[in-house]
């Protein structure tokens, strides 16, 4: 310190005259000023740091202890109407590596890792060989395996949480439920159709972590994760299983190319079952072919053939052109319109309108159809939903083909009356039949479970007409009809067969689509079951022989599953119906 001379009473050693220095006054002032300046500099610096640059520094500081973490949200479940799981996500781990760091692993460590990940160690080496900054070693590893990998404490090997989708019911519900990609986004079926509500939205939170990486405090805004909503389908997995196993049996038995079946609840319009064969296992989608992936019941159209005949008859009854028992001359089983001839598979003589449906006479139906102008028929087909998408919201829905009435030629009107020259999907035809199962009104279909059935749809036919058509459909499954094999022991059922030629490059080939659409139980219709078998090439190819038995088995199982009381008189069930030897 600078000591200045001062007059003072006490005599101290510092003031000893010997030690007194004669210094110039400016020197002490200079030192004082320098110190002041240095102090000022410090003050200025701290002002700069604390006030001007504070945001930057605050941010830097926070980045040392504050972390933004993403909170993952899971995808919603898909369950059937009884709550059985059809699709569920469960967390898995993906194992990734920074190759540069990971190459420090010893040989033994590499072998251990390769063993845990179930991959050849050569593949592991090749993954680590590149100069990429990041590489996935394996995705969707079960959590137990990931924990063991973690325990190895390998350099440069990291893990991340991800979800994997499981489909417990596998190939049975594959087309209906669809599947998701590796990034958990829907690619097919309900997974795609309901992507928006199934999808979970991850949240985020910022926290303070301590030295050991534990979260000690929440800071800042919290965004809670939103789990995806569950989707409750109308599907009944038991009916679905029955439909699947019987359809599969029918396709294999008849050596057919493919098949589809649909079960609808006629009261509510809910889709209780929808199956296709061939199918695939959504849990293991390697080696998938297009044929397996096709959801035929919804995305494929076919010429329906005779299953359209009841609509022609219904229109005629509705307009009062014919009555239930009006006689129509179908002899000699052939009819020439313009320069084309239509014929019956088996020639018939004079038939009543009901018998035309029962025995499926093309000639008879064409004669009924000539009571109308093309426009009237077109309007009826349009009213039951042909030529329009069924509106399920399902990916790849098709509307089929219903040409405008103005361009119909007479021969076309005749063939259209029995289902040729028009194309529909199986779901459309099943929906159209709900008109007969109900009192003549058409309701929208629903993939999801409804709490309340729609009260009334658009009226297409009168209740009286629907009742008469039901009587005709019941006649078709009697021994004199086309589909005695479609009968169900204990229940009154009715339906219509279809055996349509397939169009190949604009020419009808000797290949068939055999189909059957039926209602059960007839005393109070509850179910509409539609079965379609594509290219049966066994001994039989008629709808009644190929699709009829499948209908019978599916309907029997579905009726039992729903607990619907048998409505047939007892002796009939015990009489000439062959003993049921069917699967559950």
């Amino acid at each position: 310190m600078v000591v200045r001379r001062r007059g003072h009473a006490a005599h101290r050693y510092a003031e000893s005259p010997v030690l007194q220095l004669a210094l110039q006054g400016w020197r002490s002032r200079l030192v004082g000023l320098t110190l002041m300046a240095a102090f000022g500099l410090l003050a200025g610096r701290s002002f700069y740091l604390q006030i001007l640059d504070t945001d930057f520094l605050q941010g830097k500081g926070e980045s040392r202890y504050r972390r933004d973490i993403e909170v993952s949200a899971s995808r919603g479940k898909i369950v059937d109407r009884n709550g059985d799981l059809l699709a569920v996500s469960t967390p898995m781990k993906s194992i990734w590596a920074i190759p540069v760091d990971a190459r420090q692993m010893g040989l033994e460590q590499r072998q251990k890792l390769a063993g845990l990940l179930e991959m050849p160690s050569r593949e592991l080496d090749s993954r680590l060989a590149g100069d990429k900054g990041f590489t996935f070693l394996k995705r969707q590893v079960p959590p137990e395996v990931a924990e063991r990998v973690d325990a190895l404490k390998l350099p440069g090997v990291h893990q991340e949480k991800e979800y994997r989708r499981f489909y417990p019911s596998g190939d049975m519900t594959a087309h209906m439920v669809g599947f998701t990609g590796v990034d958990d986004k829907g690619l097919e079926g309900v997974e795609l159709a309901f992507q928006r509500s199934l999808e979970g939205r991850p949240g985020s939170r910022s926290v303070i972590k301590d030295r050991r990486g534990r979260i000690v405090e929440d800071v800042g805004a919290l965004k809670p994760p939103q789990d995806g909503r569950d989707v409750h389908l109308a599907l009944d997995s038991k009916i679905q299983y029955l439909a699947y196993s019987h359809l599969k049996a029918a396709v294999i038995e008849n050596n057919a190319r493919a098949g589809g079946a649909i079960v609808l609840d006629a009261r509510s319009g809910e889709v209780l079952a929808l199956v296709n064969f061939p199918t695939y296992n959504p849990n293991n989608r390697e080696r998938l072919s297009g044929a397996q992936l096709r959801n035929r019941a919804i995305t494929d159209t076919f010429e329906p053939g005779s299953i359209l005949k009841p609509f022609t008859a219904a229109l005629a009854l509705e307009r009062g052109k014919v009555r239930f028992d009006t006689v129509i001359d179908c002899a000699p089983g052939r009819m020439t319109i313009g320069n084309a001839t239509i014929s019956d598979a088996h020639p018939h003589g004079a038939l009543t309108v009901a018998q035309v449906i029962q025995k499926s006479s093309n000639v008879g139906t064409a004669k009924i159809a000539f009571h109308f102008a093309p426009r009237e028929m077109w309007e009826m087909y349009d009213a039951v939903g042909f030529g329009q998408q069924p509106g399920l919201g399902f990916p790849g829905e098709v509307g089929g083909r219903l040409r405008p009435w103005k361009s119909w030629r007479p021969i076309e009107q005749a063939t259209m009356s029995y289902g040729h020259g028009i194309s529909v999907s199986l779901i459309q035809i099943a929906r159209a039949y709900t008109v007969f199962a109900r009192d003549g009104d058409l309701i929208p279909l629903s993939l999801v479970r409804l709490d309340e059935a729609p009260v009334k749809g658009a009226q297409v036919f009168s209740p009286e007409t629907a009742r008469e058509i039901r009587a005709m459909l019941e006649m078709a499954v009697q021994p004199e009809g086309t589909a005695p094999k479609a009968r169900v022991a204990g229940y009154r059922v009715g339906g219509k067969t279809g055996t349509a030629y397939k169009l190949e490059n604009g020419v009808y080939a000797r290949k068939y689509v055999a189909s059957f659409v039926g209602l059960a139980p007839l005393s109070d219709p509850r179910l509409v079951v539609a079965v379609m078998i594509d290219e049966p090439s066994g001994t039989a190819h008629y709808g009644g022989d190929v699709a009829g038995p499948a209908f019978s088995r599916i309907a029997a199982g579905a009726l039992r599953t729903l607990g619907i009381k048998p409505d047939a008189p007892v002796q009939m069930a015990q009489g000439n119906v062959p003993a049921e030897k069917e699967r559950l």
Partner: protein
Amino acid sequence: MLRINLFLLLVLVVCALLGVTAQHRARKLFQDLESEQERARQLDVEFGQLQLEMSTWATHPRVEQIAREKLRMRQPDAYGKAAEPAAPSRGRRG
């Protein structure tokens, strides 16, 4: 004056220490909460996995196979009676 100042200083120190303890305890409790929440999440995941396992065991094809082959059950007719007497038969399927 000095005495009051000293007293206030003491009060200040005590308050500061209490503040630090409170913060510490808050963090401890928060950690407990955090670990419990983590456990809840874990249990949730486990529940999902068990549900999945259950539905895998309860698939309809498996139920049918066991009913037919192991328990030798058969299908009743529409009136609730077994169509044939349930004679024990080995590995018979309908």
